[in-house]
């Protein structure tokens, strides 16, 4: 759900040919699709969108937490946070590599991000205002990410599934560390506890929005599910997240900011209040509190680094020429 609302394209009846039927059969039989295998163009394009959106989310996602590296309040927490933000860069790297197997270059994906053509998760457009936000992100955002990504370890596309296995192990670690940070605050001074509650208040709803629009409005869901690149619906995953998180919040002694939150014995799930989808669509459209800043930071890092990347290429070319001249 670092990938939200991924467009699956529109099939024309002409494209649903025998090859496509065989392709679908392979997926139904649980056989992984590998880069050299034939695949429908729409499957390839949809996966590029989904995986690159996920990769961009990892990279842009470094920024809100990175905001607190220089102000982490203990050396141990600083080390944990640095390592976490570094892990996220690594996730971006695996995911860009997985997408590259589908015939798009990393540079092209980065260009699409910077031009505003590619999306990243809406969640990273919210600001990290206090230290507790670092804990809330680990607990809720990495927590939601895992919820979505564990099933993707079984998705139909081999390179994506394998990337997810590596990523999930680390995300689980991030979630535990985030929760541990929240626990320290919840058991701390009154000011620390208030900080933790405030972070939960601000991150709760955006975290639930991470799973994407409700199933009724989720137009591309059915195709993605048939292709097994989406294994549960948005609402199913959202419900799982709520059910998992409520007892954790109780253990912290924090209150989830939803007066309608209530255990429903009949359903065996928590009922929860209405999500403000206007806010979600607005953030996706580019009008969240930090959309402009996040993209601007990424663009600036890229532009400022141009001389560095160019120089490494130039040096490699010169070195190759020198080696060739020597060999001749």
């Amino acid at each position, binding site marked *: 759900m670092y990938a939200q609302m991924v467009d699956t394209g529109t099939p024309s009846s002409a494209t649903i040919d025998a090859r496509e039927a065989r392709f679908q059969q392979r997926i139904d039989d649980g056989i992984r699709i590998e880069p050299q295998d034939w695949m429908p163009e729409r499957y390839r394009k949809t996966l590029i969108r989904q995986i690159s959106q996920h990769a961009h989310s990892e*990279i842009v996602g*470094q*920024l809100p937490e*990175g905001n607190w*590296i*220089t*102000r*982490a*309040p*203990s*050396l*141990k*927490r*600083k*080390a944990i946070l*640095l*390592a976490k*933000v*570094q892990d996220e*860069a*690594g996730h*971006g*790297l695996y995911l*860009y590599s997985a997408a590259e197997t589908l015939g798009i270059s990393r540079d092209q994906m980065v260009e699409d991000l910077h031009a505003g053509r590619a999306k990243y998760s809406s969640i990273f457009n919210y600001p990290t205002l206090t*230290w507790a936000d670092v804990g809330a992100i680990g607990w809720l955002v990495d927590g939601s990410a895992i919820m979505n990504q564990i099933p993707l370890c079984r998705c139909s596309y081999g390179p994506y599934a394998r990337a997810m296995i590596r990523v999930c192990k680390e995300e689980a670690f991030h979630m535990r560390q985030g929760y541990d*940070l929240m626990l*320290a*605050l919840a058991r*701390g*001074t009154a*000011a*620390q506890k208030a900080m933790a509650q405030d972070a939960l208040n601000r991150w709760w709803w955006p975290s639930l929005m991470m799973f994407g629009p409700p199933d009724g409005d989720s137009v591309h869901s059915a195709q993605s599910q048939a292709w097994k690149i989406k294994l549960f619906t948005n609402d199913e995953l959202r419900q799982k997240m709520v059910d998992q998180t409520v007892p954790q919040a109780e253990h912290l002694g924090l209150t989830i900011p939803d007066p309608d939150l209530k255990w429903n014995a009949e359903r065996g799930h928590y009922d929860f209040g209405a999500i403000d989808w206007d806010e979600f669509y607005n953030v996706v459209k580019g009008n969240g509190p930090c959309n402009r800043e996040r993209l601007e*930071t990424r663009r*600036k*890092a*890229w532009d*400022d*680094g*141009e*001389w*560095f*990347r*160019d*120089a*490494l*290429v*130039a*040096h*490699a070319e*010169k070195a190759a020429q020198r080696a060739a001249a020597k060999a001749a």
Partner: protein
Amino acid sequence: MRTARCEYLLRFGDNALILSQRLGERCGKGPALEEDMALTNTALDLLGQARLWLSLAAEAAGDGADEDTLAYLRDDREFHNVLLVEQPNGGYADTLVRQFLFDAWASLALRQLLGSRDAAIAAIAEKAVKEVSYHLRRTSDLVVRLGDGTERSHALMQAALEALWPYHHELFIGDAVDAEMVAAGIGFEPASLRDAWLSYVREVLAEASLTMPAAGGWAPKGGKQGLHSEHLSRLLAEMQVLPRSHPGARW
């Protein structure tokens, strides 16, 4: 009153801590994904080293200090890092040149400490020297590639070198604390590393087709003794804000 040994430990700890803090400012904003991860890795290594040095310094202080009180509750006049590491990140060329000059010194300094009569110090040096040797290989390689790369990269690297060069002098100036550590068989004479440092740096710069700045000139110093540039107090204000504004809180 802190002993010479305690101050000596703080010097190594503060160098690592302040440089790591500077690198942390850059995390997530590097010129390429792989480079960003590598530099963050250096920041993490240095932070790990800082924690070892500062924990040992806290033990030596014996006044209930720990790594965090030393990092978060001292003022700039009580920090003992050299001026080089507190210099602002500047552009990426500046960050790399600062790192290269420091790594070249740290790898020599830590090698000296491997033979320290103080077992705790030798143990930290042994762990740190492996990491720093790797940092130095990496920064040396980048200095060569960027010095040789394009006209633009060459100019940026040369300018960074000119700007940061004056700060190398302090690395090789000894004082009473150094003398006491040498006498006790714990430490080394800073000036004794100078020739090896210069010859290593000269070799890398030559391969990079960069020009080594002229000898002599401005040689700012005082960081080791707690007299810093204007940059450190600001760096600390940011780093220390939470423990300072929540006295006694645990995180």
